[in-house]
């Protein structure tokens, strides 16, 4: 595998990961990242954060030393980039997780904001109604300085934490955020997703219905879906899984870009992830 040519990550046909067209005024978009058991999306989340903060996914395809050098160079002459506001909200990782990952590239924590909804979430919001909590969360996530790029890691857990329906989560949380923030990335765990369709007489549990509706809703409102899954053939020493970039349900006809549909193989080793074509 070492002889195989490494490939740059690109999501759009202007050869970009996060195209500048997405951040035009009055434009609001969503990306949907799905992942399954055995393929953590941490490397992709980091790559997207690095792209927004530093202009490129530096840890992809590069050794850690090389990535740090490039990051230092970019940080030194990229004072202008500080105008960008990046935020991450996670229900499965605490702030230390992100500080440690981005700290390796010497990215100052003031350049991004981590909302830790893993620690003490239940204690903090105990006794409040689901609607009120969602309103509070929207206020927290859109507080000044308003982020222009937000990653939500597993917001579907709110369905069970707040005992709300998927429609409420979409209308009162995701839609409210997309209305304010130019680009949001929803990262969701879809291992349990099993949708037999509406024609079948198979009964689906109420929890599963909400999960399916939430995931479907995310696909329909996203411009691109980034699917990470393990190899179909099982484990391999030189490949961890596949990343498929596909168009989502939302239209991009109002922008001069198109989603660059692609399928990469990826291999995660220590601190770096390499991308290849099949």
């Amino acid at each position, binding site marked *: 595998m070492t002889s195989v040519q490494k490939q740059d990550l690109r999501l759009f046909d202007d050869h970009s990961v996060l195209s500048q067209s997405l951040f035009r005024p009055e434009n609001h978009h969503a990306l949907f990242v799905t992942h399954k058991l055995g393929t953590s999306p941490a490397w992709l989340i980091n790559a997207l954060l690095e792209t927004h903060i530093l202009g490129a996914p530096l840890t992809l395809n590069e050794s850690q030393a090389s990535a740090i050098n490039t990051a230092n160079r970019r940080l030194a002459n990229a004072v202008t980039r500080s105008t960008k506001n990046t935020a991450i909200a996670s229900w499965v990782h605490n702030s230390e997780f992100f500080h440690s990952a981005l700290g390796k590239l010497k990215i100052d924590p003031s350049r991004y904001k981590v909302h830790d909804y893993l620690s003490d979430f239940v204690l903090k919001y105990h006794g409040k109604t689901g609607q009120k909590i969602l309103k509070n969360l929207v206020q927290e996530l859109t507080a000044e300085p308003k982020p222009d790029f937000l990653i939500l890691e597993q917001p579907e857990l709110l369905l069970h934490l707040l005992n709300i329906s998927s429609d409420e989560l979409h209308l009162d949380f995701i839609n409210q955020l997309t209305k304010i923030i130019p680009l949001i990335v929803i990262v969701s765990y879809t291992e349990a997703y099993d949708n037999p369709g*509406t024609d079948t007489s198979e009964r689906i549990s109420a929890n599963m219905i909400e999960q399916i*509706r939430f995931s*479907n*809703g995310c696909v329909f409102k996203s411009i691109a879906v980034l699917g990470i899954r393990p190899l179909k053939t099982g484990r391999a020493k030189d490949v961890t899984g596949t990343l498929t970039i596909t168009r989502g349900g939302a239209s991009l006809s109002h922008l001069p870009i198109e989603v660059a549909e692609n399928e990469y193989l990826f291999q995660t080793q220590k601190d770096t992830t390499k991308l290849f074509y099949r």
Partner: protein
Amino acid sequence: MASLSSQNPSVILQRILSLKESTPFILVLDSIGRSGHCILDEVAREAESSTTVIYVSFESTRKPDYATYFIEGCSTVSRLLDSIQPFLPSPEQSKLSKGKYLIMIDCINFVTAPNTVQLITQLVSPSVALVAVAHKNHPEYRPAELENYPSSLQLLQFMASSILELFPATVDDTAEQELESQLQRLEIPRGLNSPTYKLTLTNRRKSGRALRYTFKCDSTAHTFTPIQEDISQAEAQEGTEALEGLTTFNLNTSNKQRVAKEQVALPFLEAQSFNTGGAIVYEFEKDDDYDEEDPYEDPF
């Protein structure tokens, strides 16, 4: 069903998309493989410039360029109706105004089954057309007491005067099955939501007869090419040939007769108009034997 139709499928589709056909409620059925916004774009493109477009959005926060008004969707039907109705014409206004009103709903799945009927009946009128997108394979929670009540999708399909069902373009049945099994696990392959897709139109005629046509569509070139046309023509030909020489009578129908047959309104349609409240509709004819003194014979 399309086999014996006398009309050109492309013309019917064009008329439906441009709201020239009498179809007050157009249902667009889509899936993850091909989302329905392309049909909303086509309807907006075909509609006359004087049409007022009210876009009710549950999924997008961006107002489309063609929308006159943009309304954010909410889960309560009464609130939703309250926010839409100020933009609709009053009965007096609709008589005077020449322009049409078009309501677009980008995801009607947010409205629960018991509220679907209320929403549609209160919005649709002779001067207001409704185009609603419904996602197939979008399961809904149904309480035990409503287990035997039709699902939202069934109700919508029953009420719609035209149904446009979208499918991603696939090579053959095997590819279709493979795609279905992948989407069942939310593994989305490349090539979906592309500008080229398959569309099935179910058009309910005034007679109550449903005509079904399939098209290959291209949303960039805005073309709708009927497919399986050859097969249906061959079937029609076979039907004609089968009737020939059977009897000394002519059992075939001419084109003119076929058109006349399609335009016959079947009596049960009267019962579906919702205005009669279940009353027996009786139209007095000159040859009817009507006895004024018999109280049981009063048909009114």
